[in-house]
């Protein structure tokens, strides 16, 4: 390659500088929240006036927060597990072209991504009010399956599309039943993609406010909805403390996913 083409490919100093400033911009609120969580004052100054862990202690001894965390985890694990099973099964059937009209079906399975979340929220609010499911764990779980399953379907279809169909046929001819061929050959091969999809689903469930807020009961809320409502009441450093815990958890999950499955390839 000549010097000219070499130069034409590479981002220049100006582009690099702007890009790195944008990366910094993306991290600013994260840094601010973490600093606020350790600050003695109830509002934030730089540098902070003093350091304390009292906000963490306060949050972790507050039964409201603890029960909201529990609820969020139940919903996130439950809906991810259900979506993983239902979504992978459906994607597999679509991949094997078992049913005519697979394109239309795929669009239908992805539709919850297109509709504004707030619309899904109010539709389910009315539906659950009519059917008596409002405030029930089952209703909430199904709502979270709806908003998480498109991520599973998408990542499962993407992983499957890179698969040589002959590999599964080879397993069949060697004596594996249809299910064995899927479990022993196809599933291990698409597992990294499914892990990435499950992570997206898990985070999406854990993150959700616009659907959940319409469906929770007065006594039982989720963590993001609790933070959302607390902020309406006014800024409180304990919100920063719980947020910091979420930031650390997200960071750890992301790093593990990157180490184990090369997560950056799936985003």
């Amino acid at each position, binding site marked *: *390659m000549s010097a*000219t*083409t070499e130069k034409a490919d*590479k*981002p220049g100093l100006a582009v690099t500088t702007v*890009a790195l400033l*944008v*990366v910094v*911009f*993306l991290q600013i*609120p*994260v840094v601010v*929240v973490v600093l606020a969580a350790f600050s003695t004052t109830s*509002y*934030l100054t*730089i540098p902070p006036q003093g350091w304390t862990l009292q906000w963490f202690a306060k949050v972790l001894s507050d039964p409201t927060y603890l029960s909201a965390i529990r609820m969020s985890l139940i919903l996130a694990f439950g809906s991810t597990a259900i979506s993983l099973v*239902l979504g992978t*099964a*459906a994607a597999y059937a679509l991949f*094997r072209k*078992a*049913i005519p009209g697979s394109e239309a*079906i795929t669009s*239908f*399975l992805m539709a*919850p991504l*297109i*509709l*504004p*979340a*707030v*619309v*899904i929220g*109010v*539709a*389910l609010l*009315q*539906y659950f009010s009519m059917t008596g499911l409002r405030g029930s764990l089952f209703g909430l779980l*199904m*709502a979270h*399956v*709806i908003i998480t399953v498109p991520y599973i*379907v998408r990542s499962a279809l993407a992983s499957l599309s890179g698969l040589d169909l002959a590999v599964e046929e080879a397993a069949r001819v060697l004596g594996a039943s249809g299910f064995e061929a899927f479990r022993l050959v196809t599933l291990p091969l698409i597992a990294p993609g499914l892990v990435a999809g499950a992570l997206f689903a898990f*985070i999406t469930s*854990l*993150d959700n*406010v*616009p659907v959940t807020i319409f469906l929770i009961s007065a006594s039982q809320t989720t963590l*993001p909805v609790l933070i*959302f409502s607390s*902020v*309406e009441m006014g*800024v409180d450093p304990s919100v920063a403390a719980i*947020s910091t815990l979420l*930031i650390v958890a*997200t*960071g750890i*999950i992301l790093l593990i996913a*990157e180490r184990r499955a090369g997560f950056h390839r799936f*985003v």
Partner: protein
Amino acid sequence: MMKTRTGLMLIAPLALVLAGFFLVPVLMLLPTSFGEYLPGSGMTPGVWTLENYTRIVTDDYYLEVIWRTLGLGLFVTLACLVLGYPLAYLIARGPQSWRVPLILLVVFPMMLNLVVRSFGWIALLTNRGLVNNLLIDLGLISTPLKLMFNLTGLMIGLTHIYLPFMVLMLVAAIQNVPRDVESAAATLGSSRIHVFTSVTLPLSAPGILAGSILVFVLTISALVTPRMLGGPTYKVMATVIYDEYMQLLDWPSGSALSFTLTFMAIAVIWLSSRLTKRWAGMA
């Protein structure tokens, strides 16, 4: 070859869940949007009206909210494009060793809880927040700037929230531009800027469009960030729907506005897919 019956058994569970908890609830919202609001008790039984929709297109308050929502969508999309392209370009074409760390630094805020990120911006932008304190300490201003509960706050917050989506779409688009074509243009005597504007930019256009549509639709649908940074008074369509359902209990108006928002989102997606098909036909 998989048997049709096996395929049906695999798809049916998800299809039923989606039908029962997505399709039917959304369809059942439709009659509500033609109902008449009865203050206090909900809907007048047996009365059908178009008024919920006519009000949206005639009432000054609704029109202001709709134009504000669309304007916000447009601004945030442009801001994400301008800020996102250099970063995407650095990820796609910069040093190989920077690639994974940069992607992770883009994905990390995206994976982070939306409420937490919006809370971070509140801490930055409120009257006694970090930005105002800093400016006052530096002696640049004497009274705090109003950065929240207005358009400024929403623009900053939403741009930050949706920027990662744009960056990831643009990275994919720039990677799809064959480097040979860029090299060819360069060997033919094009300057770097000319190579970029005549080759890289047009060839990454489908990705730019896809990223823009995604950010635009997400922005006009957003509830959490506008609510947290806009407060109860500075409203967009999603927050109006929220209030109509949760505070006023005016479900007919809320559902009519919901369908209007849905219609806008789908119309934008449909238009863009038409445009993409036309581009594909040209290529």
